[in-house]
């Protein structure tokens, strides 16, 4: 699958300030029966976003008017823990998120983000807290820029944070690489390896 490269992105923010958000919350199981990669956005955070009667829950962070049109999610530690379901990333991406900032991510979720061109960026807990405050104070006007080339997150009011990302993942995102195509360039090595084991 070829992806749009992620080099630099400026966008509105939404904050979901709680730790250990699991992929069952991001996309509940009743929506996992689709055989396509699409159609998951409307069910993102379903059980938090909607009340029992199907109406929007006005309390939920992403339902606040300020969060409308956000493309960057500021999240808590261990984001994306639990089930390996890639549907969680498909849902986040389809909803409109291009990047997620958090103090830490679960391993499988992090890999799934990279496979879908979503930048999962680790910042310190203090930096995330600072961003949550700035985002709330900005009332929907707050924008961040994520520069993956320079590995830096900035706003227009002096926030500046450097981050690191595994070089392989960064390269994949920057170039929108098809990982399978890339691995198949090593086809001869795979064949040699298989022969050596017989």
């Amino acid at each position, binding site marked *: 699958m070829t992806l749009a490269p992620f080099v630099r992105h400026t966008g509105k923010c939404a904050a979901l300030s*709680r730790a250990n958000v699991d992929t*069952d919350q991001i996309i509940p199981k009743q929506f996992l029966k689709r055989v396509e*990669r699409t159609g998951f956005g409307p069910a993102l955070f379903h059980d938090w976003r909607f009340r029992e009667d199907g109406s929007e829950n006005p309390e939920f962070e992403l339902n606040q008017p300020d969060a409308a049109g956000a493309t960057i999610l500021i999240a808590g530690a261990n984001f994306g823990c639990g089930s390996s379901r890639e549907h969680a990333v498909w849902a986040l991406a389809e909803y409109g998120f291009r990047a997620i900032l958090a103090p830490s991510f679960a391993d499988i979720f992090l890999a799934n983000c990279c496979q879908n061109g979503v930048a999962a960026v680790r910042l310190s807990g203090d930096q995330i807290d600072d961003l949550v405050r700035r985002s709330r104070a900005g009332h929907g006007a707050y924008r961040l820029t994520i520069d993956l080339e320079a590995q830096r997150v900035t706003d227009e009011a002096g926030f500046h944070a450097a981050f690191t990302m595994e070089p392989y993942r960064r390269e994949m995102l920057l170039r929108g690489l098809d990982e399978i195509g890339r691995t198949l360039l090593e086809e001869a090595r795979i064949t040699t390896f298989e022969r050596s084991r017989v």
Partner: protein
Amino acid sequence: MTAPRTLFAKVWDAHVVHRFPEGPALLYVDLHLVHEVTSPQAFEGLRRAGRRVRRPEQTVATVDHNVPTGDRTLPLDDPIAAKQLDALAQNARAFGVELFDLASPQQGIVHVIGPELGLTQPGMVVVCGDSHTATHGAFGAFALGIGTSEVEHVLATQCLVLSKPRTMEARFTGRRSPGVTAKDLILALIGRIGTAGATGHVLEYTGEAISALSMEERMTVCNMSIEAGARAGMIAPDETTFAYLEGRSRAPGHRDWGRAVMTWRQLQSDPGAAYDCRVDLDAAAVAPQVTWGTNPGMVTDITGYVPNPDDFATADERQAVERALAYMALTPGTPLAGLPIERVFVGSCTNARIEDLRAAAQVARGRKVASGVRAMVVPGSQRVKAQGEREGLDRVFLEAGFEWRNAGCSMCLGMNADVLRRGERCASTSNRNFEGRQGAGGRTHLMSPAMAAAAAVAGRLVDVREWEVGSA
């Protein structure tokens, strides 16, 4: 002389096909397990790119996540689930992959049937689009859950691109007390290190309390490695492992057996091998565990109490505990023993093997499920179910008022009709107590099979150690 290596390092080193200049390795996959929920998009990707499955003979599929566990002679009443099952059947046919479908006597939860058939073997790299793939690490395999894009990658290349994880030794010293199970050991560990405690690491479980475990108990421990955040969990293979595997249909046959065991014996961490970190747990001090919150790290002894948010150190923790208690409808200071329940689930890739069912049956034998409680037993595979029926466990459960169902993931994740209703409280042998996991608004307490069976009979959470079991 080579430097001493851990079990994980040995398995890793033996599977590196190539190291990319940017760091990660191209790792060869011996066994790829496939199920209906995380594979359709991967097969579709292959189709669009005109690619084939590189090693269909190293790929095995089954249906487990969304299958009904009731009467299998009836057509599926969920058309979307039926479409997903059909998609896997079509994909398996088109790409030449072996499939254990609903009609197969070998159908079951992917992590139950892999070991049961002898497909899972020491020293392998095993992957599956499911986080509980860690289960197979009980054999000394490096087994990890992957996303659907990676499933497609493995189908196409038989390899996975992966940065080498760090290692963590979880050493369980001492001996378990009676009534304390493998489930309690792993829950106690998760309670200690937290749900992100092993992120980025492969856990190796060591120590006398681990060596003393049966294979099925080891699988329970490794299964929940992901609940500690780990990439995988591993236990070094030993005589227990070899005895379990010998004679299984897909394990090495008589002619190759001796050589296989000789190779497997090398799969021990060398004396002096360095782990990146270590945690020690005294198995003798572990009591039966029960979760009170909305992640598996929110766990305590059955003799314990619902905690008070004020007792937690950070504002984030206090907020998380408050949220969890509100969701679980629990008040701080309430004893966990005595908490009334309406539902009981004995099942899942964590605790639905024959020994689990025997343990639950031993408690249920000659007793009755409390009035107002709905209790179900969902064997991990159709073979486990058949074995249970040969032993008469089905009659024990049915006479006690439990439902005896067909194999599948069932109410562990509630993708099929087996779900909690809003507000129902459930004693469950599964692995996740996340909000809504077993059904929107459902409240899950994780525990061992014996504890869950005892809860079914009592109608409330109880300490199984206070019960006389096994007399009948």
